[in-house]
């Protein structure tokens, strides 16, 4: 998802406190910033929320690639609004992470130094306008699968951020589908763009959920803490089940000959993505890893004089106010 392969942290806390903490979670209580929490819970959440926040920020880039080429004023406005929402999601999430004792600058520094990751999906290029449709439909669609249950996650600030985010994400997903509708009802070139976008984004979208984690101890711990609500396979299946009929409605072909509705299970059978490609992307060998990180690094470096000036001005203003009193 926007947070992939999050390892839970081992925790070495007082067993009694741990048991009481677990009891609160099992009773469906929300954990708030000032409450006692195991160190492992705190660290795992920082990693998960931070990765999600970074994904929102880096995720602006593949769509920003098309804002200046949006084909109509309406599409340009919609895309701008969407990218603005994503920056806003980044902001809520960094704020949620700050309640766990880590600053936004610290998280940014960890992203830029490569110690923290963002979702693998944003390392894929956006090559035609149809990719704006595919990203909304598939990428936001996949993100929603994970984010809707996270509205019930145990950590209060994270759950509340997710409520706001989900409202906007479902709007983005519909907007993406609407772009795809226009493309498939358009000229032969537009239909070709739409199919090509689906071909390129299908497997990377399936990878967003991460490899199967049904045997992962990290996932088991996170699920116990209710900071992960479903297994990766459950969410991937739900995504395929919802998306396959949508592709059929659009008249597009999902690039998987094995995709069929299994009458016995009521679910679609489908081909797993190439997990070696996923691991390549995570190892910085995706098609756009270098570009994405250098774009973020450049923005950070180019903006340093502005951030420094803002701080200096605020200090001068404070000093002048004190002097005047």
């Amino acid at each position, binding site marked *: 998802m926007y947070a992939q392969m999050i390892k839970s942290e081992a925790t070495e806390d007082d067993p009694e406190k741990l048991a009481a903490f677990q009891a609160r979670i099992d009773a469906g209580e929300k954990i708030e910033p000032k409450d006692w929490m195991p160190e492992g819970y705190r660290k795992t959440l920082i990693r998960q929320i931070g990765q999600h926040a970074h994904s929102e920020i880096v995720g602006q880039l593949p769509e920003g690639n098309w804002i200046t080429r949006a*084909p109509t*004023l309406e*599409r*340009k406005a919609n895309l*701008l609004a969407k*990218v603005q929402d994503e920056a806003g999601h*980044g902001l809520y999430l960094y704020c949620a992470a700050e309640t766990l004792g880590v600053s936004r600058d610290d998280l940014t520094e960890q992203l830029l130094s490569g110690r923290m990751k963002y979702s693998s999906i944003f390392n894929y290029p956006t090559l035609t306008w149809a990719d704006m449709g595919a990203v909304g439909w598939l990428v936001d669609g996949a993100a929603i699968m994970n984010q809707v249950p996270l509205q019930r996650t145990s950590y209060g600030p994270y759950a509340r951020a997710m409520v706001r985010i989900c409202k906007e994400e479902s709007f983005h997903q519909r907007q993406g589908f609407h*772009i795809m509708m226009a493309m498939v009802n358009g000229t032969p070139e537009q239909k070709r763009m739409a199919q090509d976008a689906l071909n390129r984004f299908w497997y990377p979208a399936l990878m967003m959920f991460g490899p199967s984690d049904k045997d992962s101890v990290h996932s088991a711990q996170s699920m116990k803490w209710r900071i992960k609500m479903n297994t990766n396979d459950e969410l991937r299946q739900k995504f395929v089940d919802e998306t396959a009929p949508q592709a059929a409605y659009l008249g597009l072909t999902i690039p998987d000959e094995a995709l069929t509705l299994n009458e016995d299970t009521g679910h679609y059978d489908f081909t797993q993505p190439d997990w070696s490609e996923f691991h390549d992307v995570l190892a910085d060998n995706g098609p756009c890893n270098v570009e994405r990180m250098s774009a973020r690094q450049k923005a950070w470096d180019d903006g340093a004089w502005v951030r420094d*000036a803002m701080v200096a*001005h605020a200090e001068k203003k404070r000093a002048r106010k004190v002097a005047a009193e």
Partner: protein
Amino acid sequence: MDQTLKDHLVAFLLRQGDNTLVLGHRTSEWCGTAPALEEDIALANTALDLIGQTQLWLGYAAEVEGTGRTANDLAFRRDAYDFKNLLMLEVPNEDFGRTILRQFFFDAFQVPWLDALQGSTDERVAGIAAKSLKEALYHLDRSSETVIALGDGTEVSNSRMQAALDYLWPYTGEMFADDATDAAMSGAGIAPLPSTLHTGWRGKVAEVMTSATLTTPDSTFSHKGGRTGTRHTEHLGHMLATMQVLQRSHPGAAW
């Protein structure tokens, strides 16, 4: 309305819509790369407001023109010499300093301009102005505060802002250069002469530049040719090549 006045009204509306379109486009180029997350959000918000205003101005221009063209046709199917925006708005962003100072110069014009247009004899113009003014007031608050902060901030930021000021200054005069279209709009009570706003604009600029510890150049020279379309900069063609690529490559396609 006689044909000459109608032609002037179309030119006037194109000037309004092209200004917001071109500045909105430049602002949108910042997507995902601003100095801080808050600035990313604010720049996207500003671009969004400007593109929204463009839809209204160009939509009305297309109606008055009455040849069946739409706002999108006007935005995406005209060549550079038919664009009527100020040159100042089409020059590249360069850095955050120039971007925000240009925004301030424009906002400091737009606020009194839109305020005056609210009293236009053309009800549609008055309506678009009233809606746009709410946004322009917010833009002016933000751009003037940011210019002051960056001018006052550090030695580095001050020298960057001074460089932006020296670069942009010769482009500001074009905002106040009246011509036959302005005379026709003024005569019909549709809009005031832009030159009547010059003194007030200079006052607002002087106030902000003083707080920002920046020095306004003495020169009164001004580049012209944007709002008449007679001589744009070399930059506009590149902007349009990017902006119009899909509409030009796929004529007649619906998106």
